[in-house]
C-alpha cells in the first residue's frame, strides 16, 4: 500500500483578533492611541515583511494545531473527531492548501477535493451553465474534463430546464444542488468532508454522505469530520481524536469513539469551560458551565420537541459589572438564526440586574414545549454590555438534537421545513 497522506509535526498558529486586544482595558484612551499610531504600525509591518506587527505580545497567539503527525494509506477512510476548536477544520484547511502550516510538513499524493466547499466562485449573475465551468475551473478541473462530465452534472443537479437562467433566480435548494453536482464530479484522489460545515437540508446531507460512500467504495482516500458519532462509526474504519490542536488518539473507529465519549469531550448537553479555555480578555467575566436540561432537570443532549427545555449558564464575575446582559443565540446547523435573547431583555429585569456585584451567577431560561423542529441546533452564548464591551462570546458553545416524536403532524412521515414546530390552534368550521 502506498501512503496517500503523510503529516509530520504539523502546527498552525493563529493570531487572536486585534479587536479583542484593543479593548483589553476598555479605555477610550487606548482606542485613541491605537488609531493614532496605526499608520506607524502599518509602515513598520510593511517594512518588516510579515504580519507579526505585535510580536512583542506573544500571548496574542493560539495554536490551532500543535505537533500533529499521522500517515494515511491510500484507499482508507479516516474519521476525525474532536470538539469545536480542537483543530479539525484547520487540519483540513492545511491539507487542501487553503492555509499554510506554521511548522511541520505534509505530503499529499494526488488532488484533494472537498465536498462541502460547494459553490465557490459562483456568481449570481452567471447562468447555471456558466457557473459550472467557472466553479469547475476553480476546483482545478480542466475544460475538457468539465465538457465530458457536463451532462452528468446537470442531470445530478436536477436543474436541467434552468441551466441557462442566472443562478440568482434559483431557489436555494437548486443552487446548492448545482454547486454540489460540480464538487461531486471532481473525482479527486483524496476527498475531504467536513460535515460540521455542512449546509443544506437533511436530504442534501444524506446525498453528501451517499456520495462520500461511493468514493470510498472506489478505493479512494477520504477524510471525514463529523460530530455525529453514528455517521463516523458507519462510514469510517479508523479515527483520530483531536483535543486542543493535539492528536491524542488514533485507533479503529469504535475504540476511538469510545475514548472520545469517555473522555468527556463529547457534547453531552453540558459545556464546561476550564480556566485555560477562557481568553484573558474576558475578565472580569468568566464562564463556568452551560447546561441543557429536560423537564425532570436531567442534563441531556437530545431534547423532545413536545417537552419544555431549560438552558442554564453559570458564570463568575470577578468584579462588579454594569449594563451586563448575558444571553444566547440559537442557530440551526445550517447557520440560520432562530432567535437571540438576553437575560435582561425585560426592562424590570434590567433595572434589577443590569449592574451586578462580583460573585457567581446562573442565568437560566425556559424554552416552552412545542418549539423546536426536528434536527440539530447550535447554542451560542454572549456576555456583553451594550455599546461598551463584549466580554465573552462563543458562537457554538453547545449543540443538541431534537426528537419530534409526538409533535404536531408527525403522523405524516415527511420533513417539515423551518426551524420551529409550534402547536398551533387550528379551528375548522364548515361555513357552507
Amino acid at each position, binding site marked *: 500500500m502506498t501512503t496517500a497522506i503523510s503529516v509530520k509535526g504539523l502546527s498552525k498558529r*493563529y*493570531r487572536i483578533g486585534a479587536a479583542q486586544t484593543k479593548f483589553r482595558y476598555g479605555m477610550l484612551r487606548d482606542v485613541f492611541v491605537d488609531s493614532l499610531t496605526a499608520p506607524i504600525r*502599518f509602515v513598520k*509591518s*510593511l517594512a518588516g*515583511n510579515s*504580519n507579526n506587527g505585535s510580536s512583542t505580545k506573544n500571548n496574542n497567539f493560539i495554536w490551532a494545531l500543535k505537533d500533529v503527525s499521522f500517515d494515511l494509506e491510500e484507499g482508507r477512510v479516516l474519521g476525525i473527531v474532536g470538539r469545536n476548536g480542537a483543530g479539525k477544520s484547520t487540519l483540513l*484547511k*492545511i*491539507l*487542501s*492548501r*487553503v*492555509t*499554510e*502550516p*506554521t*511548522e*511541520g*510538513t*505534509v*505530503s*499529499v*499524493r*494526488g*488532488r*484533494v477535493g*472537498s465536498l462541502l*466547499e460547494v459553490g*465557490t*466562485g459562483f*456568481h449570481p*449573475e*452567471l447562468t447555471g451553465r*456558466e457557473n459550472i*465551468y*467557472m466553479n469547475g*475551473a*476553480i*476546483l*482545478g478541473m*480542466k*475544460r475538457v474534463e468539465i465538457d*465530458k462530465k457536463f451532462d452528468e452534472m446537470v442531470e445530478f443537479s436536477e436543474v436541467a430546464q434552468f441551466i441557462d437562467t442566472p443562478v440568482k433566480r434559483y431557489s436555494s435548494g437548486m443552487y446548492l444542488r448545482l454547486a454540489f453536482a460540480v464538487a461531486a464530479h471532481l*473525482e479527486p*484522489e483524496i476527498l475531504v468532508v467536513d460535515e460540521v460545515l455542512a449546509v443544506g437540508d437533511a436530504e442534501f446531507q444524506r446525498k453528501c454522505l451517499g456520495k462520500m460512500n461511493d468514493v470510498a467504495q*472506489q478505493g479512494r482516500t477520504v477524510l471525514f469530520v463529523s460530530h455525529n458519532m453514528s455517521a463516523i462509526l458507519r462510514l469510517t474504519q479508523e479515527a483520530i481524536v483531536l483535543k486542543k490542536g493535539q492528536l491524542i488518539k488514533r485507533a479503529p473507529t469504535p475504540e476511538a469513539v469510545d475514548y472520545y465519549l469517555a473522555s468527556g469531550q463529547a457534547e453531552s448537553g453540558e459545556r464546561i469551560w476550564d480556566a485555560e479555555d477562557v481568553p484573558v480578555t474576558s475578565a472580569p467575566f468568566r464562564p463556568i458551565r452551560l447546561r441543557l436540561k429536560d423537564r425532570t432537570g436531567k442534563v441531556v443532549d437530545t431534547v423532545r420537541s413536545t417537552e419544555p427545555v431549560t438552558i442554564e449558564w453559570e458564570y463568575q464575575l470577578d468584579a462588579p459589572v454594569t449594563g451586563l446582559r448575558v444571553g444566547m443565540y440559537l442557530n440551526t446547523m445550517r447557520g440560520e438564526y432562530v432567535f437571540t435573547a438576553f437575560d435582561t431583555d425585560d426592562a424590570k429585569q434590567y433595572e434589577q440586574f443590569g449592574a451586578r456585584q462580583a460573585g457567581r451567577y446562573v442565568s437560566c431560561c425556559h424554552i416552552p414545549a412545542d418549539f423546536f423542529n426536528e434536527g440539530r441546533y447550535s447554542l451560542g452564548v454572549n456576555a456583553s454590555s451594550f455599546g461598551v464591551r463584549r466580554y465573552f462570546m462563543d458562537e457554538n458553545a453547545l449543540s443538541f438534537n431534537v426528537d419530534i416524536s409526538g409533535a404536531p403532524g408527525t403522523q405524516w412521515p415527511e420533513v417539515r421545513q423551518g426551524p420551529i414546530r409550534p402547536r398551533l390552534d387550528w379551528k375548522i368550521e364548515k361555513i357552507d
Partner: protein
Amino acid sequence: MTELVKHEPTTIYIKPSTGFTALNLRDLWLYRELVFFMVWRDIKVRYKQTLLGAAWAILQPVLTMVAMFFLFNKVAKLPTDNVPYPIFSYTALLPWGLFVAALNQGSRSLTSNHNMITKVYFPKLILPLASVLAGLVDLAIASLILVGLFFYYHVTPAWNLVWTLPLFLLLAIITALGVALWLSAINVKYRDVNYVLPFLTQFWFFATPVAYSAKAISEKWQLAYSLNPMAGVVNGFRWALLGIGNGPDTGLWVSVGISLLILVSGLFYFRNMEKTFADTI
C-alpha cells in the same frame, strides 16, 4: 466513473514557506484555464444589469475626452503638437483607462473574491492578473472610436511606428499589473487602500500627460517626470500612433525600468503575503 483516467497522481508537499517564496509559476501555468475563466467572468458580469451594457467601455473614455476637450483645449488652450485635441487626448485615454481599471478592479480583486481564497487552493496571482487582462477587452472596444476619429479628422496614423504599439501596450500591462499586485496584497490586510484609491488615481492622472503634452514639462524636469511609468506609456502611445514626441529616449528607458521594478517587487511582495491571505482576509 469507469472512464477515470489512471494517471500517476502527483505528490504535493505542503510546508511553511520561509522568506521570499519562489514565484511558483508552474502552478500558475497549471491553472492557466482559470485565468481565462476569471477574465471571461469579469467581462461577462461587469455590464450585466446595466442599461447600456458594453457601450460603457466606449462612453467612459469618450465622455472624459469631451470634457477635457472643452476644458483644456477650448478654455485653457493647451498646445497639442498640431494634432486635433480629441485624437491627442484619446490616444492617451486608451492606456490610461486600462491603468485605472487595473487600479480599481485589481486592488479589490482579492477582497472581493474572499470566499474563493478561504475555501480552495489556487494561485492567487490569478485574481489581479485577470482583472488587468479584463481591462484589455475594454481597451479593444474603446479603440474602435479612435479609428473613427482618425477618419473624421483626416489624420493619418504614423504607419511606420504603429508596429511598436504592442510593445507599449505590454509596458502598460506591466505597469498596471505591478501596481495591482501591490495594492491588492496590501488591501487584504489594510482596507485603507479603498480610501487611498480615488486620491491616488486623481494624483496619478495629473502626473501623466493625458490631458496635456509632455512637452509642457520643462527640460530639466523631464527625467524626473519619467519616473512615472505611465508617462512613458502615454508618450509611447502618442509616438506610435501619431508620430509626435521623442520616441524611445532616456526618459522611456527610465519608465521601463521603473515599471519592471514595480512588477518584480510587486510579484515578490504578493507571493510573500500570499500565505497569510486566507488567515487575514
